[in-house]
C-alpha cells in the first residue's frame, strides 16, 4: 500500500475517533434537544448574518448577531427548550458575576448541520417552483431526530451530533473569540412609542413595503384623522381622553410612495405625538423571518429613534421524538399528546438605529 494512502486513511479514522469520544469527562456545556427543528427555526431568524456570538449561562443560550453596527438581533433560547441542559462553569476569578461562557462561530454552518437530515429544497423540474427558502417563510423541517451539543471552553470546537432513524452524523464546528458586540441600548424611560400587534400583521406590512420604491422606511405616529372607535380597548395613559393615534409605515421614491396604516385593532400602549423616525429598509427586512414565525410582535422606539422589534415564538410542544413525520406542523404535536410538555417560548429582539431622513 502506498504510504500516503495509509496516512489519508488514518486521518479519516482520526476524525471519527476525535468526534466520537467525549473530549473530557465533564464538559463545560452539554445539551440535548429532541426538537432540532424549533432550535433551527429560531436561529434561522438571525441568519441574515453568517457569524454569531453565543453566550451560555444557567438559564439557556443567548445568540447575538450584528449588521454594520446599526442593527442587532438577539435570540433568547431558554434551557427548557432542551431535554437536557448541563452547564458546568469553569472556575473564574470574578465569582460575583453570574458565570457565562461566550464564543463566536459560523451561524450558517451551525444551521446547515442542524438540517443535515432534511433534504435541501426539492428541485422542481416543471414550473419554476416556489422555493420556501426565503426570508419570509420559515422552513419546515422534518421532525424527529436529536441534536446533542458539547463544548469545553475557549479553544475547543463545538461538537454537534445529530441522529435520526439510526443514521448518525457528527459535526465539529470551529469556535472563535467572541467579538464583544456592544448592545444597542433602548432607553426604556424615554419610550416614544410602544405598540403590540399580531406578528403576522407586521409581517404583511413589511412585505407590502418591500416594493423597491425606496431604501428607507419611516415609522410615524400622527393624530388620528378619524374618531376613535368607542370599543377601542387601549388609550394611552398620557392622554386618556384623546383618540388613539394613527400608526403608519411609509416608503417613498421616484416611482411613487407607499403607506401602510394600521387600524384600531392594534394595541398602542404608549405614544408621543409626532413620533417619526426612519430606518434602512433592508435592515428592517432582516427581521422578516422572525415576523413570519412569531405569534406576537412588540414595537418600541425611544426618544433617540432606537427601535426595538420583539417577537414571541411559541414552541410546538416538541412533537414525536422518534418518528420521522416529514413536514409536521406545530399543532400535530399537540394533537398527538405532547407528553405533558409545556409550550416552549423563545424570544427574538431586534434593535435598529435610526437614519437621517432626507427631505
Amino acid at each position, binding site marked *: 500500500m502506498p504510504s500516503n494512502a495509509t496516512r489519508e486513511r488514518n486521518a479519516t479514522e482520526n476524525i471519527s475517533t476525535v468526534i466520537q469520544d467525549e473530549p473530557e469527562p465533564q464538559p463545560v456545556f452539554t445539551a440535548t434537544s429532541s426538537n432540532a427543528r424549533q432550535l433551527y427555526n429560531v436561529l434561522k431568524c438571525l441568519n441574515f448574518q453568517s457569524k454569531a456570538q453565543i453566550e451560555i449561562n444557567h438559564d439557556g443560550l443567548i445568540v447575538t448577531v450584528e449588521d454594520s453596527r446599526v442593527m442587532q438581533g438577539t435570540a433568547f433560547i431558554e434551557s427548557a427548550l432542551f431535554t437536557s441542559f448541563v452547564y458546568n462553569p469553569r472556575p473564574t476569578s470574578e465569582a460575583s458575576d453570574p458565570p457565562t461562557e461566550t464564543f463566536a462561530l459560523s451561524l450558517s454552518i451551525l444551521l446547515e448541520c442542524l438540517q443535515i437530515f432534511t433534504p435541501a429544497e426539492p428541485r422542481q423540474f416543471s414550473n*419554476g417552483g*416556489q422555493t420556501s427558502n*426565503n426570508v419570509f417563510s420559515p422552513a419546515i423541517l422534518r421532525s424527529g431526530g436529536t441534536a446533542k451539543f458539547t463544548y469545553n471552553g475557549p479553544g475547543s470546537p463545538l461538537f454537534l451530533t445529530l441522529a435520526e432513524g439510526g443514521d448518525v452524523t457528527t459535526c465539529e464546528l470551529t469556535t472563535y473569540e467572541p467579538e464583544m458586540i456592544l448592545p444597542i441600548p433602548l432607553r426604556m424611560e424615554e419610550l416614544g412609542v410602544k405598540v403590540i400587534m399580531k406578528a*403576522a400583521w407586521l409581517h404583511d406590512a413589511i412585505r407590502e413595503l418591500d416594493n*423597491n420604491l425606496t431604501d428607507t422606511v419611516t415609522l410615524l405616529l400622527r393624530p388620528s384623522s378619524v374618531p376613535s372607535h368607542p370599543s377601542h380597548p387601549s388609550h394611552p395613559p398620557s392622554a386618556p381622553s384623546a383618540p388613539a393615534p394613527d400608526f403608519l409605515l411609509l416608503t417613498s421614491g421616484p*416611482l411613487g410612495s407607499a403607506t401602510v*396604516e394600521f387600524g384600531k*385593532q392594534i394595541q398602542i400602549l404608549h405614544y408621543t405625538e409626532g413620533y417619526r423616525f426612519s430606518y434602512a429598509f433592508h435592515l428592517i427586512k432582516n427581521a422578516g423571518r422572525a415576523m413570519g414565525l412569531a405569534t406576537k410582535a412588540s414595537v418600541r422606539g425611544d426618544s433617540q429613534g432606537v427601535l426595538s422589534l420583539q417577537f414571541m415564538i411559541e414552541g410546538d410542544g416538541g412533537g414525536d421524538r422518534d418518528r420521522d413525520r416529514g413536514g409536521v406542523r406545530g399543532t400535530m404535536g399537540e394533537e398527538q399528546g405532547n407528553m405533558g410538555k409545556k409550550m416552549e417560548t423563545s424570544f427574538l429582539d431586534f434593535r435598529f438605529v435610526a437614519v437621517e431622513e432626507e427631505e
Partner: protein
Amino acid sequence: MSNPTLHFTLSPSSTQRIHESLITLSKFSESISLEARRGILILSALNSTKTASAAIHLTTNRFCITYNFSSSTDTDRFQCRLSARALLSVFRQRFLDSRDKSTAISKCEVQLEQQGPENRIAVRLLCNHGVVKTYKLTYEDVEILHAVFNRDTATARWRLGSSLLKEYMEHFSAKAEKLAISSAASEGRATFTSFTEKLVDGKDTLKQPLHTNVSLDIGNFEEFSVDDGVRVGVSLKDFTAVAWFAAILETMVEARYSVPGRAMQVAYAKDGLEAVYTLMTAQDNRISQSFGGPGSQMGRVVAVQRREPVETREETPRREMIERQESGRPPTERLESVKPSGSESTAGTIHQPTPRRETPASLAPQQNFSYRPTQQLPPMPPTPPPPPQTAPLFLYGEDEDEMDDSDREHNLFGEMDQERGSFTLGWDTTYAGNAEKGEKAVNKKKRGRNTVEDEDDDSDGDFVMPTQQPRPKGLFD
C-alpha cells in the same frame, strides 16, 4: 389642461384580475398605458418593435364596484402611462384564500389625484384587519397608440377552449422562436408547429432547440373556419403569454387572421374583462420563398392614433354600427357563445379611438368553406389514420423510414438534397390542394445568424410561468 376626475373601486377578485392582466401586459412592454373613458377602462401595452399589442378592456359596470369618470374637456378620455414594475408592486399576487384571511384585502380604490405639480394615480387597499395600504404612483401623460385590425379582412377564424389551448402549448419548448398555425381542414386537422428561422448546421445542429408539432382534430375547436393550407407564423413567446392568461380565465379563445404578413387578432373575455391581442404574422421562411429580405419581415400592428376617423373608412363603421345595434348582444358575450348558427350580420370593428364597442360584432362566415365539426364529421375510425405530418419525409425507398446506409460515411444526406425540392411544408406534405402555390418553392437553406442557444436550463421550456414574475424582485419571490 383638462382636469378629468377618475375614481373607481374594485372587489378582491377584480383586483386579482388586474394583477393577472398586468403580468400579461408586462410580457409585452415595460410600460403600461391606462385609458379611462365613460363606461370603459383600457390597460394596454405595445412591444418595442411594434409587432405585438395587448389590450385589456374592462367594462366598468361589470368589472368595477363603482366607477366615476368625468372630463371637463371635449376629449372624453384620460390617458397615461406607468411603469409596469410600479404597477405590479401595487397589484401583486395577493393570496386570496390560503393565507391568513385577516390580512387579505376587502376592497381596492383607485383615484386620479392631480394636485398642483404632482400628478398621481392613488391606489388604496383596504384590508380585513383594518389596515389601509395606500400607493401613489407617478404617471406620464401620453397619447396611446392603438392597434389596428380590420375584421372585414379576417378570412380565417377559429375558437378554442383555453384549457385545451394551454394543454397544447405545454408541449412547446420556449426556446423555439415562432409558432405556425396551419389548417388542413379538408382532412379535418389543424396544426400548431414551433420553429426557429435561423438554422444551424454541422456541429451546431445539436444546439438547436426542440421543435414541436401538435396536430389536432378540428373537432377540438368550438369553431374552425380556416381555408385549407392557410398558415401563419407568430412569435411563440407572445402567443404563450396570450394563452397563459386565457387559461387563468377559463374561457373561449378566438383568433382571426388572413394571410401571413397581416395581423392576427386573438381575443377572449370573462366577467366584464376582454383581452384583445394584435400580433403580426409572418411566413414560415424555412419552407417557402421569402418575399424579400433575409428573414420574415413583420409589419407593425400600430397606426398612429387619429382624433378623427379616417375618411375612407368612416362610412363602413356607421353602417356596421347600425347593423350591430339591431342584433343587440352585449359585447362580452359574443366570444363565449357556442356555435352561432344561422346568418349573422357582418361586423368588422376598426379599432379606432372614436367608435364605441358597445354593440356586438358577431361572427359571420366570410369564406365559402366553413368547417362545422358536428355536421360533417365522418365516423371515427378504430385506429387513427396516419397523420399528415408523418407522411414520408424521404421519398425514396418503399419503407418510409429507411435511410441509405452507404451515405453515412461522408455527406450523409447528399441524395436527399435533390429530393428536397419536392417537399412542400415540413409537416403537411400530403395535401396538394394548397391555395398558396408559392409554398411549393425550392427550399432554400437559410444560413442566417447563428442563434446558438444553450439548452442547459430546462425550466424555460415550460408553459406555466411563475405568476410573480416579472414584478420587482423582492424577498417574496
